[in-house]
């Protein structure tokens, strides 16, 4: 039954809305590439254009787009009254929420990776390949200069894990809130509030910077990736636990 619910979720996720959100994300990234052209750099390259776009534009939009693409799935079904139709078909609340979590997480990872990979490939059309000299993550300069492809790939994976975390936060909120708009907005508010608090606490994190990539101690990609995967795991786990412990799923 769990496999069936997961399959249902995946079938439901890949719809026009996901395509629309992907398109918006792509347009934002393309706008970032346009801004990149106004900055001076020793050598314009496709990897650098990708790196610049992703680091400057995406952190602002990712929390909202992640929640809107897959995170609102539970809130949407709760507001439409679909949950009882599952439970009356013998699906337990645990199977239902696990299916939702696995389905939406898979869809989110695929969605973010595909969109960013598509943008990277598009930059190959407009810019020559070459090292990232100016706009790479500071603590990953060696990788940016010597293996820009791996740098871009790692960047995609970190952003996919961050997107997963935002989607998980939205899923967790949906356990109590069925208003789709509220659920879509909460991860953005939480993200900027957390960054603001970090600044108040005199942390090195810059609220307008890059999903913690720039200021992470040690290898930036590894620590930022671990951080977002931990947030994602906790939020998905809490969503599953809290939903299962409810006494009314209608």
């Amino acid at each position, binding site marked *: 039954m769990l496999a*069936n619910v997961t*399959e249902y979720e995946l*079938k439901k996720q890949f719809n026009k*809305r996901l395509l629309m959100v992907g398109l918006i994300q792509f347009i934002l990234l393309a706008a970032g590439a346009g801004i990149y052209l106004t900055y001076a750099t020793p050598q314009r390259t496709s990897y650098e254009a990708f790196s610049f776009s992703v680091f400057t534009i995406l952190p602002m939009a990712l929390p909202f787009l992640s929640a809107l693409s897959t995170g609102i799935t539970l809130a949407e079904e709760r507001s439409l*009254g679909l949950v009882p139709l599952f*439970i009356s078909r013998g699906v337990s609340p645990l199977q239902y929420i696990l299916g939702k979590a696995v389905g939406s997480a898979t869809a989110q990872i695929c969605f973010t990776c595909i969109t960013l990979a598509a943008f990277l490939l598009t930059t190959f059309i407009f810019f020559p390949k070459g090292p990232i000299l100016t706009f790479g993550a500071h603590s990953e300069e060696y990788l940016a200069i010597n293996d820009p492809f791996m740098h871009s790939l790692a960047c995609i994976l970190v952003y996919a894990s961050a997107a997963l975390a935002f989607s998980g936060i939205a899923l967790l909120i949906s356990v109590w809130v069925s208003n789709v708009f509220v659920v879509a907005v909460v991860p953005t508010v939480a993200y900027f509030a957390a960054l603001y608090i970090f600044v108040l606490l005199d942390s090195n994190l810059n609220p307008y910077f890059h999903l913690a990539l720039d200021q992470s101690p040690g290898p930036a990609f590894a620590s930022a990736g671990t951080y977002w995967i931990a947030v994602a795991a906790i939020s998905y786990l809490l969503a599953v636990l809290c939903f299962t412990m409810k006494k009314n799923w209608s």
Partner: protein
Amino acid sequence: MEEILTVKSLQKTIGQKRILNDVDLTLKSGEILGIIGPNGAGKSTLLKIISGTMIPTAGSVHFSERKGVIGIVPETPAILPALDGFRNLELLASIRKKIGKREIKEAMETVGLDPSNSKPAGTYSLGMKQRLMLAQAIMEKPRLLLLDEPTNGLDPVGIIDLRNLLFKLSDDGVGIIIASHLLREIEVMCHRVVIFSKGRIIREVNLQEQSQGFIEIAVSDLEDWKRLCQWSQENSNSLKELPSKGLPRGLLQTNLTVPDLLPQLIYAGIKIESIQTAEANLEAAFLECARSEGGLYR
């Protein structure tokens, strides 16, 4: 007929409020049970607990088919608005994978929907959405069907279709529970009715019993009504007034049959407009409950 559903000592408390209070209920295979009562009486809560979407505070629900489907028609249609009707049902059927496209099409045709209609279900009229809900409820051939206000949004033809469909399902052995405000529809559709108030069953009416010693009488005017009241008092028969827009109308409880009663009333000078043996009268039972409860709606 075997019992397919047994509800025992069911209680539900939310916060300080007791929603259900010691509800006992049984349903036999092929039986249509109606639940009526004012808003907030606990009808929908009972259906939610039976369908498994709500956990009771105490008591138990036993459905004879442990892993069987329970068909539910919620009060508000639950659909994915961007998908067409067929795709909606196909997605729901994929949860159990017990039926294919043929069964889905059959269910849609049974409720009067066109499976090839590619319009998004969100653009359907309320009546069409309600039909779609019925189709999803019956497509997997459930043994138990729960309907919460199923006539919402249905046009007169839709209501008649629904009635015929429920009778057919009942003949096939499906147990059906309908919660509704519409006394007339419940009366026509159900074999048995329970009247709910403040979370408990206050009366059970068996609508299959053709006569319970009640005769429904309509008289010409108020003077005749007064004479009828007087006659019933003198003859120790109870007379209940029924709500009426036209002629005064009442329900007389008596041991006499209509052919024996009619000459006596004429002899007493009462002008009778219509007289007939009353079937178990839900409206009368409901009003009686309302009186004994100090008004169900208060």
